[in-house]
């Protein structure tokens, strides 16, 4: 197959039909076609992790994913993390703990943290460190990010919900 083609994508629960070429990455489609610019792009080769989105719940690098290969999968971007104007508890915790500095890695950190807590609601510090190690924070604010995730995990467990 060559040239343009219309594919169906489900992003943040919304169905979309977009025209893509095979070499277009999910990152390009999200940012340039769907105007969802919360997802960042940086290194382009898998080192920085800032382009992370969740594909069927799993952290994926959107800059190394061809859009055409994730048709009919569920994609969650940072724009879909808050619900009904309510922040996700992880988002609140990041604000409260000062876990956001320049903000460039924040969307990827939050989504990676969400995937972690979905998999393991009660992670240790070490497990958090390992899980988020694929996302670089060049402000080096890791301590606060880890504290925010620890505290969000606790609150989500206590409430039995990811939202207040």
């Amino acid at each position, binding site marked *: 197959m060559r040239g343009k083609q219309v594919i169906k994508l489900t992003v943040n629960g919304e169905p979309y039909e977009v025209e893509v070429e095979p070499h277009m990455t999910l990152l390009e489609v999200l940012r340039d076609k769907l105007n969802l610019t919360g997802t960042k792009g940086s*290194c382009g080769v898998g080192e920085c*992790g800032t382009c992370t989105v969740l594909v069927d719940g799993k952290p994926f690098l959107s800059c190394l994913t061809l859009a055409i290969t994730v048709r009919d999968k569920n994609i969650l971007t940072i724009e879909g993390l808050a619900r009904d104007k309510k922040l996700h508890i992880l988002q609140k915790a990041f604000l409260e703990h000062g876990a956001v500095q320049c903000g460039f890695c924040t969307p990827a950190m939050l989504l990676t943290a969400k995937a972690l807590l979905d998999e393991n609601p009660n992670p240790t510090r070490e497990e958090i460190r390992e899980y988020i*190690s694929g*996302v670089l924070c060049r402000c080096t604010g890791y301590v606060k990010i880890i504290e925010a995730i620890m505290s969000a995990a606790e609150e989500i467990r206590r409430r039995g919900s990811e939202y207040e």
Partner: protein
Amino acid sequence: MVRVLTPFEYFEPKTVEEASNLLRDYGEKVRVLAGGVDLLARIRRREIQVEGLVCIQRIPGLDYVRQDSEGLKIGALTTLRTLERSQEVRENYRLLFDAIHSIHSIQVKNMGTAVGNLCIATPASDVAVSLLALDAQMKIAGPSSERSMPLENFYLGVKRTALQPGELVTGILVPPLPKGSFGAFMKLVRTATDIAKVNVAVRATLRNGGCEEVRIALGSVAPTIVRARKAEEALRGTRLEREAVVEAAERAAEEVNPITDIRSTAEYRREMVKVLTRRAVEKIKVEAGVKG
């Protein structure tokens, strides 16, 4: 923003046969796309030029990990993360688990397949080094036939595999480990996420305190991953006494042919082969409760 990929044609075969026919018909102009972690990065860096990608992601029946009487079976689409989370791998093939666990990016492990990792054919692969020590076999399919070959014979050089036109890898077979087998994986890296300067996997089968069988696999010290056969000989039949271990480590360092690059000098790598080989065997001794 990151550079765009150069345009290519996209194929999505539904069967292995269809995939291998495409690979045969288009030859060098196309590449297999599995997880895409390595391939798309290379295209973006303009390291390789492709006219087409043969995406195997939607071929059914290639995503599995299971253990039976023939050993551990891994499909071409099985991701590193699936293997890391598999109880069979963690409990029965610890060496493989440790190698995968040393990769520090959940994103890479969710997308990247073990077979894709092996097909890159870099001598720095942690997965390849551990699978070499486990005597892994590659299962290969071509347009009209299937074959399998030891992982050791799969590599011809840096980024060169023994795959013929039209062939793709369909899976990996890791034979059952004899009773009394122990393994140790070690790598030396500058930062946790960097590629290894040197990586070592050792597997030993012990009976009544004696070393019956042993494999020493080394990475990043030659154009392909290698087995240190003379070092293995120095251990086989011993009780892993200190002198035997030191001798094996010395021989391993003599057998390799490292280069100097941005990560290390050749001299340093050679020295570290000695250190890591010794430490890996020491670790096995501790785990197996071998004294001395």
